[in-house]
């Protein structure tokens, strides 16, 4: 029990540090007043501008010291109010933007993760059982190629061949389509993210299965006359999944990074592409909210992976 409490406390501390860092960076390195008003913010001689500056400062609490602003933001944030977007009207609120776009990104990342897992497990089983033979070597080479292909390049290639040349897949995402066609439109973006990750998983799992296959209980299973498939699926796979689970958890960060690129290429209005747009528009409440959501989900997933670990292997708890 003490272990769990410690881990949760550490995670909370971590997120506080992350939020302070992000909030501080955006406020100190960036210029929020300029981001709201544009060139007017620098025009301190014109009385009209001064009035606008005063109003904006009060409205966005910019006249308060930095720690106070952080405290205000934090107490709003934990209650689900992410503030207003930086524009003359402040509409739509950041929470609205996020709640509209987050589900798309979650779907995309989940699709990519599922794809990577379901491809890599059979791929690893097949290659591990034929380790060192031609099929295995070709697959290792292929995995190398996939890992070396940056996801923005892979996105362009997939888009060119499957959407433009072959015309099998739709070119863009249409937010108003029924959910079935939206899911179909997400296949190529999910492949973009999932393919290189599948190669990473396969390389790891293959090594672990090979190690497992050399153990005595596999030999016993073979002398009992069990079939190869049965040994692989029933006896070898489960004990080999240990580090696989950790890496699947840790890779969520890479998947989110991938979704930023993939959403941009395939024009999916999720939080990844919104992050890029808001960064280029200097809309810092949106940036802050997205960074915090991404970091929180990353930290929480890793926490869950650690907890799952203690269920599989209780020694970790000590």
């Amino acid at each position: 029990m003490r272990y769990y409490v410690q881990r949760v406390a550490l995670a909370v501390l971590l997120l506080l540090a992350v939020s302070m860092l992000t909030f501080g960076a955006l406020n100190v390195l960036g210029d929020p007043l300029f981001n709201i008003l544009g060139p007017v913010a620098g025009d301190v001689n014109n009385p009209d501008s001064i009035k606008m500056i005063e109003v904006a400062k009060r409205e966005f609490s910019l006249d308060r010291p930095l720690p106070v602003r952080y405290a205000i933001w934090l107490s709003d944030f934990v209650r689900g109010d992410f503030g207003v977007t930086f524009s003359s009207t402040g509409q739509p609120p950041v929470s609205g933007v996020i709640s509209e776009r987050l589900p798309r990104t979650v779907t995309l990342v989940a699709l990519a993760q599922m794809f990577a897992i379901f491809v890599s497990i059979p791929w690893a089983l097949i290659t591990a059982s034929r380790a060192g033979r031609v099929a295995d070597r070709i697959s290792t080479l292929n995995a190398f190629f996939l890992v070396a292909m940056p996801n923005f390049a892979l996105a362009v290639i997939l888009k060119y061949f499957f959407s433009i040349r072959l015309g099998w897949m739709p070119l863009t995402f249409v937010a108003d389509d029924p959910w079935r066609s939206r899911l179909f439109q997400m296949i190529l973006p999910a492949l973009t993210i999932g393919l290189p990750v599948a190669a990473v998983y396969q390389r790891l799992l293959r090594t672990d299965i090979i190690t497992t296959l050399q153990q005595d209980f596999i030999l016993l299973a073979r002398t009992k006359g069990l079939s190869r498939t049965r040994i692989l699926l029933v006896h070898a796979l489960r004990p080999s999944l240990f580090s696989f689970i950790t890496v699947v958890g840790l890779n969520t960060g890479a998947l989110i990074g991938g979704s930023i690129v993939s959403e941009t290429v395939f024009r999916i209005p999720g939080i990844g592409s919104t992050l890029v747009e808001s960064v280029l528009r200097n809309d810092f409440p949106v940036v802050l909210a997205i960074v915090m959501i991404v970091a929180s989900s990353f930290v929480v997933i890793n926490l869950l992976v650690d907890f799952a670990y203690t269920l599989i292997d209780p020694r970790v708890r000590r």
Partner: protein
Amino acid sequence: MTTENNSAGDETTVARKKLGFGFWLCVTWLALMAFIALFTPLLPLKSPTSNFIDSAQGRPPYAPSWKHWFGTDKDARDVFARTLYGARISLTVGFSAITAGFLIGGTVGVLSGYFRGWIDRVSSFVFVVLLSFPSLVLAILLTSLIERSLLTVSLVLGLLSIAPVGRLARAATLQYADREFVLAARQIGAKDRRIIVKEILPNVAIPMSSLALLGMAVAVVAEGGLAFLGLSVEKGITWGGLIQLGSDASKTLEKAPWISFFPIMMLFLTVLSLNFAGDRLRTYFDVKEMTL
């Protein structure tokens, strides 16, 4: 595939691990890229910014031909020249970033692994904080707030590599900090500084250096990603930017795929070489349990 192996085999009768033909092929490609990156302005290339409008061919983009090996983009600029110029920023940023990451992260990691105590606790927490941002998100956040020059983009990507490099350096140092030769050195009165530099560093440096190539691959990809999103070095040609230019509208990609595909090919071969050579080196030095 066996040309390399004969010359090395004579001296040692024990079968040694070989780096292999593929490794040297990758090194050759990397050397070629480094040469191009260093000497682009001196090479007999077409100007990367001129517009080679050819009224006989109609409106650009023009397909690859003898005159333009990789074709031209829609402003009739030579893709071949631009791709080679792109090597400059991409490789410089990748190299400087990983160098900065190794210098800072390596120092912090070795110190915290050696002294433990509060240095270790503070640096470990900082590493965990840095690692709790997905790296592309942190890179986007930071590059959006600064003036994007060659130096600052390198520094941002260097900052990203501090945490992973530092963790590895710390882990490697921990392996050696309590070994007999370190205790012996301390017994004869060696100072901490001497022990770190003379006893620990040589042991940590070898496995770490074999990871430098893998780290550089990560940095080159990260720079490409930033450039693709429009957040890398502002003035200048980068591979990521070239790929973006050829793919921003599906019409461009459909009519002139070469604008994107040649830079993709160069980037892919470079990253592949870095990964492959790095992986071979890692096996060669037998570095286990260490991944970036």
